[in-house]
């Protein structure tokens, strides 16, 4: 404990206590087990899928199949990496309050994205899919980021910016932006999270 008899020390001590309370509340109220390396590998996988899908932009069924397969692969990679990070770090479990709040706000826009994919595909509006996916994926990170580490909403904003651009482009260019987003952004933010937030 600092010398509490000196006003300057007392001032610092009080500030330290407030910072400590705030840091504890942030740690206790956040879901921190975001897998950085998992994000990185999802990015690598998605970049590969974007390259493959680029060949099928004239044949929408195959193009869609490539990205739906990628979604399953990414979910498996991210889910496994998250589970391993929770076990390794001793962080709050996936069923803790902040984790539940994180997943509810993360999955709500993704469910909307899945339904819209079906609706748009049935209507033949395949060109709208890249923008829809990027916008809703970004929205899911902005909303779930309220319950997690600070870099998550930033990543969400980047995805949404790409989605806005994709909204004005045709499918071949939209597919390239999917590669930049699901590939590039995952790789960049995955590395940032892995370096700064324990893997």
């Amino acid at each position, binding site marked *: 404990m600092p010398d*509490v*008899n*000196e*006003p*300057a*020390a*007392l*001032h610092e001590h*009080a*500030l330290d*206590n*407030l910072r*400590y*309370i705030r840091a*504890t*509340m942030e*740690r*206790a*109220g956040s879901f921190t087990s975001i897998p950085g390396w998992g994000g990185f590998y999802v990015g690598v996988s998605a970049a590969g899928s974007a390259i493959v899908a680029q060949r099928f932009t004239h044949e929408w069924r195959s193009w869609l199949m490539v990205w739906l397969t990628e979604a399953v692969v990414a979910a498996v990679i991210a889910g496994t990496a998250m589970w391993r990070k929770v076990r390794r770090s*001793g*962080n*709050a*479990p996936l069923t*803790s*309050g*902040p984790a539940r709040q994180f997943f509810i706000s993360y999955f709500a826009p993704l469910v909307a994205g899945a339904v819209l994919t079906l609706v748009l595909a049935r209507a033949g509006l395949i060109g709208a899919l890249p923008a829809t996916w990027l916008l809703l994926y970004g929205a899911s990170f902005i909303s779930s980021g309220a319950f997690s580490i600070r870099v998550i909403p930033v990543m969400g904003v980047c995805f949404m910016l790409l989605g806005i651009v994709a909204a004005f482009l045709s499918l071949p260019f939209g597919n390239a932006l999917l590669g930049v987003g699901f590939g590039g952004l995952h790789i960049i933010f995955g590395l940032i999270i892995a370096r700064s937030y324990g893997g």
Partner: protein
Amino acid sequence: MAKAARKQADEAAPRRQPVETKIPDFDRLIHEKTRLAIVSALAVNPTLSFNELKAILETTDGNVSVHTRKLEEANYLVCRKSFEGRIPRTEYSLTAAGRRALERYLSHMEALIKATRGRG
């Protein structure tokens, strides 16, 4: 308006005590670092299990046990014990008294910062 009321209150209040004499007013129970962290963590979670608290505080079983018991004795938190299959589970939550104690402690810290600002 608010400024005038504050000025009036300041005039009505007894002469400001030296800063040092404010120390005994602190709630010593939650002034301790681990207990302050327990109360802070429970302030943003309706309940936390023993293991969750241990992970947040990055401390030992014994430490969590000792400090939660002290807070429980002061009626700052309540403890519920149950079984998940055959594994015992202990869950803690903050009482209204515990939440008020944290609010009081925060007000004390803010008052102290205001009182000592520019005096160092």
